[in-house]
């Protein structure tokens, strides 16, 4: 017998760890990655690897030399940030912009607040919005699906369905005319449309969602509340004015909504912790997304919607409390 360990209970721990959760998220992102490689070719691989590696390297450098603590890159969170950042960028984006975006995501978005667990905003979205506002031209040229196998910077480009919708409505076309210009819903569902690397394939993202739910990495509340809100909000508009508004399915399948609802909004650190709070957060994201898409200047609003609701998360956590056992009884 060696030395007996004395510690308070519990003496048992389940086998879950931060790194296992993060690697679970990475596994859940794989289907969307494969679909993206299928439709966009080599560009997806280049920007995803670049973003992953740069996020990990920047985090290591900042922890090692600026914060002077033991680097915790093995927890996998920097890798997830890198993949998510790449997934909301066009696949023909120059490498230096990907690296710059990764730098902003990790340094400004995450490490300036003290690293994992302390950042108020989703780091990948901080990087993405920084790039989007600073380099609007490069960030809004979208490679066409299915034609750019080995073309990277010289990929042929086209518009996303949301762009077509926004511009056509602006120029006064009727919905029946616009619908001829956008892809069929079944194509949008499997990902045959223009867009960012990882956002196009709703089907693959839903497979990822199922995996996350089965592994109990996330709960259903946030994705369902966002998607449901978007469907109800756009559904009301569609029913009241079908000639001017696309049906809810278009909104659910287009742009970054699915990627945002499943992988960005569900980021542990920046989303509420109680089911009721998750509903408030999800409904907020859904409403803001539709408002930006329909009434705003930008064709897509998910990234802003998530960042805005990230800012409300501490407030939600402060005021939305779990139901305490025996509290109602005590008061009644």
């Amino acid at each position: 017998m060696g030395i007996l360990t004395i510690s308070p209970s519990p003496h048992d721990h389940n086998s879950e760890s931060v790194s296992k959760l993060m690697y679970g998220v990475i596994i859940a992102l794989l289907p969307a990655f494969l679909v993206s490689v299928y439709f966009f070719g080599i560009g997806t691989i280049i920007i995803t690897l670049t973003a992953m590696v740069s996020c990990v390297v920047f985090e290591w450098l900042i922890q090692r030399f600026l914060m002077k603590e033991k680097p915790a890159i093995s927890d996998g969170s920097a890798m997830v940030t890198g993949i998510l950042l790449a997934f909301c960028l066009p696949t023909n984006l120059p490498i230096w912009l990907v690296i710059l975006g990764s730098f902003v995501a990790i340094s400004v978005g995450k490490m300036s607040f003290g690293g994992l667990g302390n950042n108020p905003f989703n780091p990948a979205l901080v990087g993405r919005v920084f790039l989007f506002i600073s380099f609007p031209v490069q960030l809004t040229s979208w490679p066409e699906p299915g034609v750019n196998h080995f073309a990277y910077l010289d990929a042929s480009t086209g518009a996303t369905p949301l762009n077509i919708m926004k511009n056509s409505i602006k120029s006064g076309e009727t919905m029946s005319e616009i619908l001829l210009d956008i892809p069929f819903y079944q194509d949008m569902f499997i990902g045959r449309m223009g867009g960012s690397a990882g956002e196009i394939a709703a089907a693959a993202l839903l497979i990822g969602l199922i995996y996350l739910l089965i592994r109990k990495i996330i709960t259903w509340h946030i994705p369902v509340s966002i998607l449901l809100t978007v469907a109800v909000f756009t559904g009301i508009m569609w029913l009241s004015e079908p000639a001017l508004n696309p049906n809810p399915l278009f909104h659910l399948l287009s742009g970054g909504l699915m990627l945002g609802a499943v992988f960005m909004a569900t980021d542990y650190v920046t989303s509420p912790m109680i089911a009721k709070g998750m509903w408030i957060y999800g409904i907020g994201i859904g409403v803001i997304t539709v408002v930006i898409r329909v009434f705003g200047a930008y064709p897509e609003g998910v990234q802003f919607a998530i960042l805005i609701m990230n800012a409300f998360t501490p407030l939600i956590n402060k005021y939305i409390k779990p139901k305490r056992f025996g509290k109602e009884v005590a008061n009644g």
Partner: protein
Amino acid sequence: MFKTFRPGGIHPSDNKLTAGSEIRGLPVPGQVSIPMNQHIGASPKILVEKGDLVKVGQLIAQEEGFISANIHSSVSGKVLKVDAVVDMSGYKRKAITIKVEGDEWLEEIDTSTELVKEISLERHEIVRKINESGIVGMGGATFPTHVKLMLPRGKKAEYLIVNGAECEPYLTSDHVLILEKAEQILTGTSIMMKALDVDKAIIGIENNKLDAIAHMSTQAEHYPGIQVQGLKVKYPQGGEKQLIQALINREVPSGGLPIDVGAVVFNVGTLLATYQAIQKNKPLFERVVTVTGKYLANPGNLMVRIGTPVSALIEACGGLPENTGKIISGGPMMGKALNSLEVPIIKGTSGITVLPDTESTRKEIHNCIRCSKCITVCPMGLEPYLLMPMGERELFERMEEEWTMDCIECGSCSYICPSNRPLLDYIRLGKVEINKIRRARKN
């Protein structure tokens, strides 16, 4: 239909290695040390001194104060010393050490195995006898049982809840008691129903013990008013408040007692002790202890005299394995790590769990990622992730506002945390400090 409590709960691997292993009598050791702090409440007054001869079952310490309990000798022999010895808490506390000579029981104890079902004592006599017999809660809480039977003025018990959940991993002492002593437990239940003047009793058993549910259900048919209810396996189902909610769907109010919702809860071991005290005149001086661990050669459920050193139990189960890293009094979720093998077994010791060194140390702590798993599993609806930093920063008044005192210390939060944060450690610290603040407020 199996019931369970909500919210919260976890599913640790149950590791019931000794399920289905019969009760083995542990030979009386050469010497016992019977601690005076075996129960919640005041220490009893010691009645013997060095050199006295005692018999098995003889009163050696008399309750003193409202919440206290009698203590009886578990062996016959000569009092060696009345002194302080290290007990399960790790501190030196008062204990009576007896050198064993023979095994001579008091004559009034009925040692026959014949079942006595007829309850001849009246209500107040039952309470008095339980008090005299030194019975305390044997699920681990060790609250003196007779005090529980004195209901506060104006309160009426409606249900007697029998705790056979045994949700703690590894432990099987309640399971084996149900299998081997079902009728005695049921008679004990009837005695308690009479003492509390209730006509409904529900026995809750988790469905990882289907044999126990089946056996108890069959036997209970002969006892009016007693019902057996299966429960879905979920920790901490055996928590008093959780069990009441699972069985009768009532929530004990924050800071309140089970009697506030008309319930009184007893563990099956307590009911067996009650049967023996009332029907067999046998005070509480021995109990079943599960001695378990993945690397023990011969784990089992042992009938042990109170005061027996832990080392004697481990010897009887094949000796301490080479790779032992931790020895726990109780199970891995709520048990207490021991610093010595020479500490004595007490009335509340339901098991001794031996963990290998690979499972003995905690893992590296990481930042909280606010995954909210601790909130999801908390059976009391608390937010451990929030309470821990408050504890670290000594914001104890804030902790009190966040209902910290409701914590039942089940450890589900620390168990589930993917960042291995010692959530419960800081919540416990908070509870101690809040109690100090509350006492200061009163004065």
